[in-house]
């Protein structure tokens, strides 16, 4: 055994290190050399594959280059806002405009204390100050009107916004429009009210942000369209997907013709909870004294005796909305319209039924609509169930590749692609793996608790990203609307897009209700 293999055997002086000692000290240098030689080869091969794919695709790996009206310009004047319909969605809109109810802030604080991954409060506080005041609240339910007033004067404002005096309550929205105290309104009533409010607001010169679906019927959509077009108001329909980074990126992918000819677009809704099926909470203080029931059902085709179920769960009845068609197909269609600019289809066949929630509702809980666009050589299929949570997502199917769009985006080459044939044969493109993924975002994970919220987040409807920072798509959508009010331009979901959304959804509703295929007459602009 050699001495040099013992601890004491190491060379005892720097200057006396033998050649053999130097050899042993530097013995691993060749290993390092082999390592880096292999590392460089692997990295070069990986980079070359990636470059070849990206060059072939002609799309940048980074975020979407152009996001229309992404952030509100420095505001030149304070806009006075009114809320009409401060229910669940209305209260959310008001919060995304910068006015959270004090109870919500308290709950959000508790949620963070319990689970630091909960990002609701942080997202709220990170919103920019839109330089607006909530001056008017209109709701037929006293509790919700009071909550709107409390939110209007909340002392926890995002972006260092100032604290405002409490809003005034109006029992009729017409009084609010005529008061001269509001410049713009958020509309989040049931759908049967939308058209009338839009028309009255347009006549009063008050700007409108309206929740989807734009209207309950075809005639209402025509009337709303005519009123807004004849006015100078700025109109925005509440499809916040317009602000999603992934959706804007998807437009680039389509523009770069990466998918080849697209013949089928499949869009889906899968939810599996009572809340997701509009079985919403009935407020303990809701009764005939606190709710102006007659006014609530004024625009509904059938008048019925006071009903807590109908008031708090109105989406379950065709008297107030159009069920899946107006609530969720509308979102899915608008996303597809945003990405492909499809417009109104030539025909629609829809079917479905009440197969699970046999709770007295008259809207289907399982619903399918098939749209044909012969002039674009493609079909758009929507399929939904409210009693299953399997996430099928939104898929664009082209001859050369498929694209899945949600909170993120991925593109996978087709095995039988003509365009990528050579690259697939050369092993540069692997059709069993996405050749391109785009994940907007930040490093970190947020806990989104409810199944419904997870559903929305996966579709990029709740949150999107700007410069790697998480922001609410709702907030950006409202900010864009205010920006156009102040500085001019076009909202991303303006009346033209809203009209396309309304008619496309109404085609499905009509087809389902009448049990026949319906078509669109582009000359008369009618469903026939």
């Amino acid at each position, binding site marked *: 055994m*050699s001495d040099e293999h*013992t601890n004491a055997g*190491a060379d005892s002086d720097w200057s006396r290190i033998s050649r053999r000692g130097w050899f042993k000290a530097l013995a691993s240098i060749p290993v390092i050399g082999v390592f880096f030689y292999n590392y460089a080869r692997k990295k070069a091969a990986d980079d070359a594959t990636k470059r070849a794919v990206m060059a072939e695709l002609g799309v940048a790996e980074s975020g979407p280059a152009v996001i229309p009206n992404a952030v509100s310009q420095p505001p030149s004047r304070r806009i006075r806002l009114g809320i009409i319909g401060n229910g669940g969605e209305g209260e959310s809109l008001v919060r995304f405009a910068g006015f959270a109810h004090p109870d919500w802030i308290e709950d959000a604080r508790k949620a963070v204390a319990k689970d630091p991954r909960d990002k609701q409060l942080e997202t709220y506080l990170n919103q920019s100050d839109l330089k607006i005041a909530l001056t008017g609240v209109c709701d037929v339910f006293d509790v919700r009107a009071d909550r709107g007033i409390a939110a209007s004067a909340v002392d926890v404002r995002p972006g260092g916004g100032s604290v405002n005096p409490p809003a005034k309550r109006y029992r009729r929205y017409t009084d609010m429009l005529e008061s001269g105290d509001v410049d713009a309104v958020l509309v989040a009533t049931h759908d049967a009210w939308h058209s009338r409010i839009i028309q009255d607001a347009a006549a009063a010169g008050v700007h409108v942000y309206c929740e989807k679906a734009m209207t309950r019927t075809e005639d209402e959509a025509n009337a709303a369209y005519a009123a807004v077009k004849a006015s100078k108001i700025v109109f925005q329909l509440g499809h916040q997907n317009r602000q999603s980074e992934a959706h804007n990126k998807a437009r680039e992918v389509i523009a770069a013709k990466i998918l080849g000819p697209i013949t089928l677009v499949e869009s889906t809704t899968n939810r599996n909870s009572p809340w997701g099926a509009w079985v919403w909470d009935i407020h303990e203080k809701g009764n005939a004294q606190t709710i102006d029931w007659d006014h609530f059902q004024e625009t509904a085709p059938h008048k019925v005796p006071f009903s807590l179920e109908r008031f708090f769960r109105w989406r379950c009845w065709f008297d107030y909305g159009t069920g899946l068609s107006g609530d969720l197909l509308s979102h899915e269609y608008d996303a597809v319209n945003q990405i492909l600019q499809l417009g109104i289809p030539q025909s629609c066949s829809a079917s479905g039924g009440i197969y699970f929630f046999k709770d007295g509702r008259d809207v289907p809980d399982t619903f399918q609509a098939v749209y044909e666009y012969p002039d674009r050589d493609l079909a758009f299929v929507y399929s939904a169930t409210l009693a299953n949570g399997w996430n099928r997502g939104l898929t664009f199917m082209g001859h050369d590749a498929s694209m899945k769009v949600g909170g993120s985006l991925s593109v996978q080459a087709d095995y039988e692609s003509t365009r990528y044939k050579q690259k697939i044969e050369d092993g540069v493109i692997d059709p069993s793996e996405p050749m391109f993924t785009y994940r907007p975002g930040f490093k970190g994970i947020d806990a989104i608790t409810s199944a419904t919220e997870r559903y929305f987040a996966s579709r990029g409807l709740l949150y999107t990203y700007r410069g790697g920072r998480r922001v609410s798509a709702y907030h950006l959508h409202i900010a864009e609307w205010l920006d156009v009010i102040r500085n001019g331009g076009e909202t991303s979901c303006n009346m033209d897009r809203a009209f396309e959304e309304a008619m496309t959804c109404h085609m499905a509703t009509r087809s389902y209700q009448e049990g026949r295929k319906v078509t669109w007459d582009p000359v008369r602009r009618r469903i026939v």
Partner: protein
Amino acid sequence: MRYSRFQVISLVTLRMLIGWHFLYEGLAKITNPYWTSAGYLDASQWWFAGLFRDIAASPTAVTIVDYANMWGLTLIGLGLLLGFATRAATIAGVVVLVLYYVAVPPFVGYAYPMPTEGSYLVVNKVLIEAAAMLLLLAFPTGHLVGLDRIVFAKRRAAVQAARANA
């Protein structure tokens, strides 16, 4: 401690293989802009799950942990390969591996979203690599084969000089 030639070759081979593995794990993370430890941390179970998930929830903490991982693995890998600061690199390696293990231990009843390349029951490759590094700590080789041999030589010379003066 006296090693036979066979023992030295075995131990140094083990050290270099582990060093190679660490170095590539580190460099692969450094060169992947999308890599983050967040998913791993968030999937944590067992006693320390709360701590790891809290880290995953904080973008600042995740960023720190990400950088610590990328550069920690790279430096540990270089240390083991070169035989430089071998003892410190070995200790750091054991600590890192034990942390990886306790974050997502393959105990009965625990399921993880990350795919694994093998089948594990309590013992996984992370634990085995940690044990192998413990072995390297018990049977050091940096002063025999590696840059530490030079450092060690200088230190011994200084000690001998001090003794001579005394």
